[in-house]
């Protein structure tokens, strides 16, 4: 890790030609290969249905809407009786798949038309740390990445995100964040998740990244203190750099009302061309076209034990991840012709 790395501006040879056409194919291919629709709640039902058709005569087969109704009633009864499992972080997969994820589907498919690239770089099992750039005033990029991993990954994994302490301090939001699988961004939690084989997502720029002014778009901010690298080193899991293009344009932050931010205890109070002038209408995100690219995994199990105690190695790895994301962002941006059409 001592020598400087040169990362070509126009990407690896195999990436460039197939990106525009290929990305869509990758998604279609993944879906076809595993014959699972991207919508989380549909899958078990449809599998059941397929099995049912094999064993029963066609006339006794309930209509799809009945299946749906049975599913819904079953879910409602489970919720009323508290008959579901929650893990030690407060993650409630039942609620996440049935209530929290479905509303994101239209946003993901129709509004932002998210294209994922390099989903094969996300391992199907075992711990891995996805590190991504943060932008867009509201953390929609994080929720979209989580949805992408859940819907488009062949193993349909849950992304366990690490959130700022402000999230967990806030009523309602904090409880909801825990139920959706998030936990506080601190090393004990990250290492516990990673060593139990979870896929963890972190946005190390934090508020500096998500709340940066529109003129600084796609300029990566400082990557915290590299805590995420030491967590990965301690657990020996790969780091997957993730570059998100499109999230910067959803709420172009052109101003910041400091007084209001202080009043509400927010890190910033954004002013966009439409917010707060258009009131709630201004809170609708602009329909930019998104690309989420998962880069090649960076191995961390080759540095031997106690590698996390070597600050130089931690700094170098942090820089390597940061540079990879920055260069991928530049490459994706040069290939993008239009913010809204892609």
């Amino acid at each position, binding site marked *: 890790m001592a020598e400087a790395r040169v990362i070509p501006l126009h990407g690896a040879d195999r990436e460039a030609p197939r990106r525009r056409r290929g990305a869509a194919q990758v998604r279609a291919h993944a879906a076809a290969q595993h014959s699972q629709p991207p919508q989380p709640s549909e899958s078990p039902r449809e599998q059941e249905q397929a099995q049912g058709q094999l064993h029963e005569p066609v006339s006794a087969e309930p209509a799809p809407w009945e299946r749906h109704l049975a599913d819904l009633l079953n879910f409602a009864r489970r919720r009323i009786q508290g008959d579901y499992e929650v893990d030690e972080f407060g993650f409630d997969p039942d609620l996440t798949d049935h209530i929290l994820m479905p509303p994101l589907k239209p946003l993901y498919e129709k509004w932002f038309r998210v294209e994922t690239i390099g989903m094969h770089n996300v391992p199907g099992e075992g711990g891995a740390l996805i590190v991504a750039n943060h932008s867009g005033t509201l953390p929609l990029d994080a929720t979209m990445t989580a949805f992408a991993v859940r819907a488009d990954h062949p193993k349909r994994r849950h992304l366990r995100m690490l959130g700022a302490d402000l999230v967990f301090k806030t009523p309602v939001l904090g409880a909801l964040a825990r139920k959706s699988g998030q936990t506080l961004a601190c090393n004990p939690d990250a290492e*516990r998740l990673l060593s139990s084989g979870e896929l963890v997502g972190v946005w190390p720029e934090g508020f500096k990244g998500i709340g940066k002014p529109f003129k600084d778009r796609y300029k990566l901010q400082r990557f915290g203190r590299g805590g995420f690298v030491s967590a990965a080193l301690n657990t020996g899991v790969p780091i997957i750099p993730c570059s998100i293009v499109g999230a910067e344009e959803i709420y172009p932050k052109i101003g910041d009302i400091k007084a209001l931010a202080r009043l509400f205890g927010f890190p910033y109070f954004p002013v966009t061309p439409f917010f707060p002038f258009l009131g709630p209408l201004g809170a609708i995100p602009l329909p930019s076209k998104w690309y989420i690219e998962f880069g090649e995994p960076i191995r961390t199990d080759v540095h031997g034990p106690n590698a996390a105690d070597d600050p130089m190695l931690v700094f170098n790895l942090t820089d390597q991840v940061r540079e990879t994301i920055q260069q991928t962002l530049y490459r994706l941006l040069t290939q993008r012709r239009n913010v809204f059409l892609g």
Partner: protein
Amino acid sequence: MAPKVVLVTGCSRFLGGHLAARFAANPDIERVLGVDTEPPSRDLLRRMGRAEFVRADIRNPLIAKVIATAQVDTVVHASVTANPAGPTGRTVMKEMNVIGTMQLLAACQKSPHVRKLVVKSTSAVYGSSSRDPAVFTEDMGPKDLPSSGYAKDAVEVEGYVRGFARRRPDVDVTALRFTNFIGPRIDTVLTRYFALPVVPTVLGYDARVQLLHSEDALAVLERATLHDLPGVYNVGGDGVLLLSQAIRRAGRVALPVPSAAVPMMGRFFRSARLVDFSPDQMRFLNWGRVVDTTLLKREFGFTPRWTTQQAFDDYVSGRALRPLIDPELLTSVERGVLDLAAKLR
């Protein structure tokens, strides 16, 4: 080394009493002494069998005489409690917890016969806040020190216990940090709380609750007494229940109260003598607390028989809590709707 003479504090309460009963049933132990300020209930006294009850206040130096004359070699300090005796019992509770522990430790330090000390502590020493990691291990401390109530008592008690361990390195000291107890027989703040027909919760928060079955708690205390297992251990059942989930499992109805109104609510429940929540326990209702029990399983050698969920279900069925919404009604509604749907087809 098996203990010969065991002294159990707080033997009028559930844990101390049943622990003394277990030791009394153990033929290897020569003598069992139970200490408390008030005599145990008749039922408990009958269970305790050959165990001797000593009516003494551990805040009083008299306890030193008891320990010295009976040549006690093992002291089980199980009287540190979160449940005050009455609406005015909070000051008394603090005195019993902190001053009582100081006196007891002073007595132990003086007696050359004492070989082992087992302290019932609590996971409340980790505090409860939004900035805490999700799971506490034994080496973590609280983010902000509890400023009052039971949690502060427990932090101080543990401080004195550490001091004692430093001054008497020949004594094996085991501190057990228990999560909240639950079970059909035990009576705690939490068992009363879940028995309320309408359970007040804090609006916008959902605590992660880890519970320990009271029988598991007894087994852990017994194991710590009979074997030499010095150290600090977290003790809790596997798994987690969300507060809202627990209320649903008990068939109760949650009543979310805005944070601002929570202290008022607490005062109401205290004056109505329903549930006596201290401020630090109210914070627990916001965020809850989960501890890591790897050390308990690997080094202490104990795996709780009940998971959090099983322990809670045992409590619900043992107390015969009648759910407000009948589960059979739910199933029949579900079936009815589906039958209707089948007819419509």
